[in-house]
């Protein structure tokens, strides 16, 4: 059980700056994020897109913004729990007990939800019967590629993940690559390589096809794919891989007894606290009259929520407002020499 003054859910720009604010006022915090990297939507959805409305930064990309925020956190040793999703939140006296899907447990008086639009999850196939084979014959990510050796693998998607795995697995498996159109959005070099493998009969390519149905009892036996013109093909297959990118889903947050309206959580504008004492929501996931879904709003919200955390984490101390330009204790925390 990890004890911390505050637990932040979400390592996007708002979560990162909120961590900075907590550490600045002398509180400990840890961050959980379901993605495998720091940066949230900025890094997952638009790492290369320029942003023009970060105060005092005329232009930066999502990736640059993330790197700057990480740099700003350098003086503090913050523990990140990536690839983990908070599943359970339960109150025990005045303390929240939090559990992730990997079994990590936290005990904290303060939870700050900086979860954007929810956690990123792989987009799945639409035919219902796919669920039954999930993690057995149908996968959305690969942990152990050796299981595919000598098998027939049908890969769906048109991006880098689909192309890279089609190329890689074609060495030891019979690979079908299926994509809904005849253009691929992956790197040109991968597209060229894939086309070469298709020419050499190492990959069977089906474009303008999508998955129609899957068949099999215990194990997957075959799939049906349908062309734009409605023609249906039956493919014998042992495994199916889907690479359609990530979608954002509110997920378990919906079960924590919070006031949720259209995927956003209602908060007050003094502490950014939800209807549950000690649970705050900041950034895109919170809502209040006049809410703007801008990164700069998330920074403001995080700064105020951090001060509210102080009261619950240090009930016997009084929070004193200080400036970074003049406060000795803040400079100490930052490791700045006078």
């Amino acid at each position, binding site marked *: 059980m990890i004890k911390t003054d505050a637990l932040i859910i979400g390592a996007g720009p708002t979560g990162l700056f909120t961590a900075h604010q907590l550490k600045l006022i002398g509180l400990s915090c840890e961050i959980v994020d379901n993605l495998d990297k720091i940066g949230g*939507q900025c890094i997952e959805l638009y790492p290369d897109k320029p942003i023009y409305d970060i105060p005092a930064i005329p232009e930066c990309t999502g990736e640059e913004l993330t790197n700057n925020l990480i740099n700003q956190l350098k003086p503090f040793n913050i523990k990140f729990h990536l690839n983990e999703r908070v599943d359970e939140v339960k109150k025990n006296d005045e303390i929240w007990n939090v559990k992730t899907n990997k079994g990590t447990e936290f005990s904290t008086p303060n939870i700050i939800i900086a979860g954007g639009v929810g956690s990123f999850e792989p987009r799945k196939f639409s035919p219902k019967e796919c669920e039954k084979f999930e993690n057995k014959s149908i996968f959305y990510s690969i942990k152990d590629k050796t299981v595919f050796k000598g098998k027939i693998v049908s890969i769906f998607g048109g*991006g880098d993940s689909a192309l890279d795995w089609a190329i890689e697995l074609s060495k030891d498996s019979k690979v079908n690559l299926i994509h809904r159109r005849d253009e691929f959005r992956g790197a040109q070099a991968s597209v060229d390589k894939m086309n070469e493998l298709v020419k050499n009969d190492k990959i069977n390519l089906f474009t303008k096809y999508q998955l129609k149905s899957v068949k099999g009892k215990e194990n997957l036996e075959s799939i049906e794919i349908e062309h734009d013109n409605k023609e249906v093909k039956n493919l014998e297959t042992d495994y199916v891989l889907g690479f359609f990118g990530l979608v954002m889903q509110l997920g378990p947050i919906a079960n924590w007894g919070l006031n949720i309206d259209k995927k956003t959580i209602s908060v007050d504008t003094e502490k950014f606290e939800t209807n549950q004492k000690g649970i705050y929501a900041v950034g895109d996931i919170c809502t209040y009259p006049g809410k703007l879904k801008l990164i700069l709003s998330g920074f403001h919200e995080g700064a105020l929520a951090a001060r509210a955390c102080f009261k619950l984490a240090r009930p016997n101390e009084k929070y004193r407002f200080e400036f970074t330009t003049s406060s000795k204790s803040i400079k100490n925390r930052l490791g700045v020499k006078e």
Partner: protein
Amino acid sequence: MPKITYIEHSGKTHTINVANGLSVMEGAVQNNVPGIDADCGGSMACATCHVYVKEEWFNKLPKKEDGEEDMLDMAFEPKKNSRLSCQLMVSDQLEGLVVNLPEKQV
């Protein structure tokens, strides 16, 4: 203001006057039409404002940019007549546009 009709997957129809300059996505979100999520807020970074446009209208709309087709790869059940509604700007030319919403967005 042009009239835009949104047809939910269930068949329920919403006809709304949407101001010129807004996107078809914004017209739906601002008027509480269910079925368009628009998770990324209109930055063409997700595929949760996905709609189907009937052929007669589809061919009249401005062509897709590359990025839109890439995002549609990640939509729920994309078809030939799929569009992202955040990329469809309302103007007088769109008077009477009808869009069909997919069964779900994610």
